[in-house]
């Protein structure tokens, strides 16, 4: 690494690190409401980092991406999730997470793996934000761990959305964002997905009287 890193790159790296920290915080968060707030915060930082990339590089479509991220991930989706939680009366839903320290350790190992995988590709990249590709992959992996370890429906969905955040970070850090039509399509899918899941939550609650996925272990082979 050269001694002089431009300020913009430093800011982008800072944002990426905050996103990674938030991913760890989400992994350890027991309360559903707090979890959604963390997710909203992650979306906000993601928007900020996209904005910084846009300003530094003058890529116009990144402004739209940043706007889309702000509208969808920092405002609309958290709002929908908040409403769902309130309507479903799961505010008190505190999960008993098993072994937070172990999960954290697994997370740290995954971050190291992610950095190693991303290293050769980051070197090929010309973008100011290339250093963040490893972080993006790590965020995806941490979200994946979150989906595996959670037993409640809403935290699993938040994990799914956090994974999408990581992918978006990868897209902006490695390539200055995907073509606009693809980004719009992805945003539409995510939005429709959350709405469908909202419908789905009510169905689950009506059938199981709970949003605990661990009740759903009837389907087995043999």
């Amino acid at each position: 690494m050269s001694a002089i890193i431009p300020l913009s790159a430093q800011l982008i790296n800072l944002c990426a690190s905050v996103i990674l920290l938030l991913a760890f915080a989400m992994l350890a968060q027991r309360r559903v409401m707090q979890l959604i707030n963390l997710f909203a915060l992650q979306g906000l930082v993601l928007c900020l980092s996209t904005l910084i990339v846009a300003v530094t590089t003058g890529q116009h479509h990144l402004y739209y991406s940043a706007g889309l991220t702000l509208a969808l991930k920092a405002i609309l989706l958290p709002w929908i999730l908040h409403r769902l939680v309130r309507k479903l009366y799961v505010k008190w839903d505190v999960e008993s997470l098993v072994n937070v320290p172990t999960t954290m350790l697994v997370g740290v190992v995954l971050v190291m793996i992610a950095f190693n995988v991303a290293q050769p590709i980051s070197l090929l990249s010309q973008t100011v934000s290339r250093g963040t590709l490893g972080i993006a992959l790590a965020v995806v992996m941490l979200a994946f761990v979150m989906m595996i370890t959670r037993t409640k429906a809403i935290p699993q969905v938040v994990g799914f959305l956090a994974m999408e955040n990581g992918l978006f970070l990868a897209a902006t850090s490695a390539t200055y964002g995907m073509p606009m039509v693809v980004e719009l399509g992805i945003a539409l899918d995510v939005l429709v997905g959350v709405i469908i899941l909202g419908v789905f939550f009510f169905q689950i609650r009506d059938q199981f009287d709970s949003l605990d996925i661990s009740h759903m272990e009837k389907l087995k082979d043999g």
Partner: protein
Amino acid sequence: MAELDIFVAMLAIPLVSGALLTVIGERKWAPNLNVIASGCTFFAAALLTADIITNGPRFAMGEQFFIDSMNVFFVTLTAFVGMTTSIFSGPYMKNEHEHGRLTVARLRLYKSMFQLFMFTMLVALTTNNMGILWVAMEAATLTTVLLVSLYRTPASLEAAWKYFILCGVGIAQALFGTILLYFAAERVLGETGNALLWTHLVEVRGELDPSIMVLSFIFLLVGYGTKVGLAPLHNWLPDAHAEGPTPVSAVLSGLLLNVALYAVLRSKVLADGAIGGDFAGNLMMGFGLLTLLMAAFFLGRQKDIKRMFAYSSIEHMGLITFAFGMGGAVANFAGLLHMTMHSLTKSAIFFAVGHATQKSGTQLMADIRGLVRINPVIGWGLMLGTLAILGMPPFGVFASEFMILTHAMKYHPWATPILLLALGVAFAQIFGKVQPMVFGETHAKRLPHAPAITPVFLHLAIVLMLGLWIPPYLTRWFQEAARMLG
């Protein structure tokens, strides 16, 4: 311009009729509208195919859509199975309604989602943009999640949740693969909107950075492979097939798996050009064999008839993935043929199974007995379908399996015992379970609505015909597609 209109019509019909079916709700003629719309889609697809055969590959809507000999073949197949499924689902869904398993609102949801599902499948097949391909695949998952949970039973909700989460995770990996692909392409094609267009990518595939493409292909294969039902991420498939309504099982098995595999094939062409050698092929052969073996041994443990045939779909997808992994004109030809055969046969089986389970009032194989006595047509339909899917001559599945096996013996002899073992185990398991269901004592009752038998035998007749004689233009078409796959 006329051809363009056909293409636009083909995409517009399912989209518009899906919206229409949502708005008008469940009327007496809604099932007919569903059939008519699917029929028109198939008609448009057939016209489009005729056009491609005579005039060669073409673009539509600028360069956003691209139809060549490979995807037009999937388009026709998709539209055809979509049409026959809509015919089958008419009386089937009415019976479910009379049995009190479905409300009027859910019948409406089923029809509109079915049309939207067809729309997303057709977009995924014809798009030229690897990013839009991803978007359409994800949209296809979303349209089917609510269909899998249509019965709202605890088991169906569990299946739908599993389906959404597993496929969501899988498809997220495919998105990462797509991002990496774009990253590799951007370095060659520059930062234009064209860098994800397949026709542009395929021209410069030799210049794409190999180290990025290795990683990209792994993510794409695992991601789309989840939707194909490749082990070890196949768990969603048997649940979704068993718990959803039977027409949904038929289109999931017959169409969705094919389209996901199509996405893998498109990625493989790019990866082969960039990486060189057999990297992508070997990876696919490995996953294919693992899937085939796993499915063959899980088949015997199933008690639910739809679960068993879902595992059979996984088995065949493993075999097809293996065939494409071997590569070369012959193996690709066999793979494409087997995809066609599997689609037609498996959807025919699900149609027969749907009526059989309705008659018996259960999906448990131990309780389904003597189908030939209550309804000989359904009984024989199931029996013939089973024989066809197990690869008995003279059905078409035999021809494609025979080609795959002989090709494997010649070029990859080590794989032959594994293939034979898996196919043998599958044969013994499935035949041993279907035989007592078809023949044997029974006391089941008649159904209020006569079942639609035509789709079952129409499919089986085509499979039989293709086993005996493949029309020359179809052969040419397969060969051209196989050559494109490299």
